[in-house]
């Protein structure tokens, strides 16, 4: 592996993304919504709904692990609402950000590159297929993971500042597991899916639309939690991360097999 070549691909893709408004706008807007506006909103909601009926909060609190439940019961009702929403119920939703960032950059870097007819020039250089693949994967994964981790850190700080609640409830253990393991997992899953879709589909927009379906399972988990079906604890969070990593690994392997000069050129 020639790291100079891999770094060149990463540098090129990231410079190009930085200057591409259609790609850059969601990369800025989504983190603001999920990592700043959402925690502030939930914290304020907790304050305004401090008189929330027990019938609504009770099933959620009952679903918590006993140790967390005991600590939560010592908080004000408003704080309880904010913590349940931020640390448990909506925790998986923050994974949408690294997922979206990874898919947007990967779609621009693969399908977009083909659409702009700039891929063949790269293929005409001595770079090996695996170096190009690795460069493209890193170019999408690194900013997605960085934004995911940094965003979670900001989210937790904002939430602590607004609610006045700190560890171990905010951030909770499931939230930390999702941040540390789930963020890179969904980033790789997202970009792996884009690699697979890009092998079949030509345009950037088509790839973006199809890869958008990846957010559906995350929304499904959130809805299931809201309906009281379950509330994520550290075991579920860990299991979810293992499933995501295993799927991402499988998809990336399949994507690597499809990522060959001739196949890339034929579709272009």
């Amino acid at each position, binding site marked *: 592996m020639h790291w*100079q*070549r891999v770094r060149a691909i990463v540098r090129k893709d990231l410079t190009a993304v930085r200057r591409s408004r259609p790609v850059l706008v969601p990369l800025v807007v989504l983190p603001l919504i999920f990592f700043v506006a959402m925690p502030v909103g939930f914290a304020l909601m907790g304050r305004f709904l401090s008189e929330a009926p027990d019938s609504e909060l009770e099933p959620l609190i009952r679903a918590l692990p006993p140790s967390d439940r005991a600590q939560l019961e010592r908080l004000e009702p408003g704080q309880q609402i904010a913590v349940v929403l931020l640390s448990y119920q909506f925790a998986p939703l923050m994974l949408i950000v690294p997922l979206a960032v990874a898919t947007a950059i990967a779609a621009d870097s693969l399908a977009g*590159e083909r659409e702009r007819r*700039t891929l063949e020039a790269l293929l*005409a250089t*001595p770079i090996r297929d695996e170096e190009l693949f690795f460069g493209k994967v890193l170019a999408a994964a690194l900013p997605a993971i960085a934004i995911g981790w940094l965003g979670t850190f900001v989210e937790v700080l904002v939430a602590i500042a607004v609610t006045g609640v700190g560890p171990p409830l905010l951030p909770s253990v499931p939230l930390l597991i999702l941040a540390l393991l789930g963020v890179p997992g969904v980033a790789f899953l997202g970009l792996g899916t884009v690699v697979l879709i890009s092998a079949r589909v030509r345009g950037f927009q088509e790839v973006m639309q199809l890869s958008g379906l990846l957010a559906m399972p995350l929304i499904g988990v959130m809805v299931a939690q809201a309906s009281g079906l379950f509330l994520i604890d550290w075991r579920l969070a860990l299991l979810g991360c293992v499933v995501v990593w295993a799927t991402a690994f499988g998809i990336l392997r399949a994507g690597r097999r499809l990522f060959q000069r001739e196949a890339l050129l034929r579709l272009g």
Partner: protein
Amino acid sequence: MTSHVRDPVATDDAKLQLPQRWSAEPCPQTSGRGSLIEGYLEQVDEKRRCGSLQFGGIDPVATDTPVIVVDRLERRFGQTVALAGISFQVAAGEIVGLLGHNGAGKTTTIRLVLGLLAPHGGTVRVFGFEPMVDGERIRQRTGVVGESLGLDERLTARELLQVFADLYDVPRAVQAQRIAALLEQFGLAEVADRRVATYSAGMRQRLALARCLLHDPELLLLDEPTATLDPVAAHHVRELIAERRREGRTILLATHNLDEAERLCDRVVILERGRVLVEGHPQELAAALGVPAQLAVEVEPELIDIAIDVLTRRSLAAWAEPEPGRIIVERMTRRQVPDVVAALVGAGVPVYGVMLRTPSLEDVYLALHQRTERR
């Protein structure tokens, strides 16, 4: 002048290495249509049924190891046959034009030479390597300007060259210096830090050429390098290509610009529907194929009918041009010119001027193309 032809039924390398001599004199047996080129092309047809003709250019026996050896190369895309067994060679330091209409197989050939596509039959060797096995080594020594330039418009010229310098393994220590030199040489130094999106077509083409020279390659593959340019920009790019040739680089130039091929190339390989139609030096090709010259004769306008009558009686095809007093005599050779002038003067027709128009590559190409169209 002598010409070479490969044995069309040769199926082994030994035969390909031993070209037979083939007379380049126009065919003595003209076809029913009575044209020299028709008769000649019928011979050409027979000879190239399975192989290709080679006129003029380098003798494969005499050449040191050729940089590119393409032998009965085939490639299909689904049911479409892109290349149907083409063969040609490019010697070190040569500039060879790959000519043909859109879809003739030029770009496919370049992609196969680079190892971007796998052949479905035949072989390619570049620097002695097989592109599908040693593509990396070949691309290391080859600079490419593709049909689409492949310049990311969001980068500046300097950024783009830095990226490609890394991809071509140009040592970091010399990158800045080499990039600055190329930007200067290609007239882009002033705009090096502007995004490519703001560049004109000519500037982009120059940048693509600069990019393909970053690693100081021995071989250049240029696919339609002036196709989208205005005449001034195209002229500039042609000059840059000619300079690269003077530096001793080997160049394979795919183009459908016949004038460009005639000016720049040592030899041309004319492709038609995935086959090599003919191959040779542009000038020698015209002569060998018997593409006739035209003689423009300027006579007294009032005597033009007499002049045409005199020439027709000498079995020459002559016709009056719209310009008063100008006659065109078809299928002329240089040797016939004094006879024509003498005949006219002898018949009392004053001759004010004569000009022999030698056939261009375009004439050759059109003649070949018309022939294949008729079949």
